[in-house]
């Protein structure tokens, strides 16, 4: 309402409903209203509900019983032996996949950053696996590709290497799935490539005049300017890796052999939707959230040391 205590009456800035709506302070929120509603209904409410459920024995259709920390005790004490297994499997998976993916995408981006007519075609081809890599079709194909009698072993035999039990041995299965993830480095590569090309040519020209060679120029000019993008990709990839589900569920039946490919998300799914222990599932979800939160904060904190923002001098 009009501010109290004001002597002069303020003239209304609007004369009709449509003019009222058109004010910045009304129109703005109205435009983002769909997002706000969606946020509250599909994100905020579930977010806090799951925290509540984590402390209960929630099962759909049954009355809820408060369990206190029982779910967490079950998780951490080893009563659920698959919990720690799935955690470490996912940990290994993420901490191998992410650096490899980043390394490949950066290296290939550097290689492709030279001017050449065919670069556009190469760029697209490297991107294709990224585009369809998450699909069921590719997952099923990967299973056959790396089967004991599959194409990869056939190629290896050409080189005189014995067939490797890529998906049937606990030693190799997880890395075969990791390979599927790394194969999809294309989208991260595109992002790096764009960042490399956006480095102002004048920087390089000035450096050349000063006698800097290509390697020196890369490490002193290009790489520092890439660090924000590296930061972005790192966080994205890490969070994505911790939530991996499809490759395990589709290729190794969620764990074969001997739980060596049991992703955290798969175990969570089984507990929640096969055994209907939803309270426990929510507890697992919140633990995942905390772990991701810790790593994200670590990366954020460390970013002051190694991420270079041009606006800061």
């Amino acid at each position: 309402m009009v501010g109290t205590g004001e002597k002069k009456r303020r003239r209304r800035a609007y004369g009709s409903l449509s003019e009222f709506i058109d004010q910045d302070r009304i129109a703005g929120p109205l435009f983002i209203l769909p997002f706000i509603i969606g946020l509250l209904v599909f994100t905020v409410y579930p977010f806090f509900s799951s925290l509540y459920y984590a402390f209960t024995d929630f099962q759909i259709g049954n009355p809820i019983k408060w369990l206190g920390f029982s779910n967490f005790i079950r998780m951490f004490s080893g009563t659920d032996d698959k919990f720690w297994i799935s955690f470490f499997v996912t940990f290994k998976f993420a901490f191998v996949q992410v650096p490899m993916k980043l390394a490949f995408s950066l290296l290939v981006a550097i290689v492709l950053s030279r001017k050449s007519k065919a670069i556009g075609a190469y760029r697209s081809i490297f991107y294709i696996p990224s585009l369809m890599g998450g699909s069921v079709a590719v997952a099923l194909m990967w299973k056959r590709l790396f089967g004991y009698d599959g194409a990869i072993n056939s190629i290896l035999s050409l080189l005189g290497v014995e067939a490797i039990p890529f998906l049937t041995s606990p030693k190799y299965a997880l890395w075969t799935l990791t390979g599927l993830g790394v194969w999809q480095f294309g989208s991260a590569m595109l992002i790096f490539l764009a960042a490399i090309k956006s480095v102002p040519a004048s920087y390089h020209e000035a450096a050349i005049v000063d006698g800097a060679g290509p390697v020196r120029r890369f490490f002193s000019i290009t790489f520092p300017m890439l660090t924000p993008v590296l930061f972005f990709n790192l966080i994205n990839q890490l969070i994505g890796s911790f939530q991996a589900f499809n490759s395990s569920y589709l290729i190794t039946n969620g764990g074969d052999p001997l739980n060596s490919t049991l992703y955290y998300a798969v175990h969570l799914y089984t507990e929640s939707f096969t055994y209907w222990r939803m309270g426990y599932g929510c507890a697992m979800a919140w633990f995942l959230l905390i772990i991701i939160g810790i790593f994200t904060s670590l990366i954020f904190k460390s970013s002051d040391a190694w991420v270079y923002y041009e606006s800061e001098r």
Partner: protein
Amino acid sequence: MKSMKKRKIMGTIVFHVFIIAFCFSMIYPLLWMVGSSFKENSEIFVRVRNILPTKWTIENYITGWKGFGGNTFVLFFRNSFFVAILTTVGTTLSSSFVAFGFARIKFRSRQFWFTCMIITMLLPNQVMIIPRYVMFNKMGWVGTFNPLIVPSFFGQAFSIFLVMQFIRTIPRDMDESAKIDGCSWFGIYWRILLPLIVPALVTVGLLAFIAAWEDFMGCLLYLNTPKKYTVAYALKLFNDSQKSDYGATFAMSALSLIPVMLLFFFFQKQLVEGISMQGLKG
């Protein structure tokens, strides 16, 4: 001088040879899958590594198309298209609408909601899926397409962000002159800005379609009757039901990737540039 030029040409040739070899190994798996789908079943694991069949056949496609449980892949493709197209429409419309509000209109709570949006991109899905399932179950939506389609009409953080980045590259002059002429915010959005951000919308639409087309988790959770299965889910069940007929699985897998491949061929530029934009400052 001449030898330097020769070395440069040699260098370029070596470069291209290596890159082409690398490219080939990258797409070999896909080529292998498509090629194997045209092989007779008996041949698939006999001459495994070869892409091309000695004898081309489409029997795998015919067998595969029959599907399972009396439902052919016609049904599954229809369901997938239905979900994917609606999701694409929802995402594109809502994301551009919201992005406009964030990017062009100044209002007090803008920074707060924008930060909320960024935070949602850092949250793992797992925290939300169980209560969402419970909620959808209470609404009677389990077993329908609704849980897959409806949320897309409320804006999707990544898409909103993408469109926002694009809007920032458009000067505000036209907005301002339109405002002076008495145009409403909605008018500016609908008549001035929307036509200008079509490239961003195309990218958002493409990515949304592909994500919806390939979505497996959503179908796993919410589609429990065969009549509603999408290609992604049906493919998995079909594969389970085939003990040794891998050819049919390859065939249907290859088919399921066709829409994505087509989109890629026709919209390569938009896709690649859209993704690349995240690498630019701003």
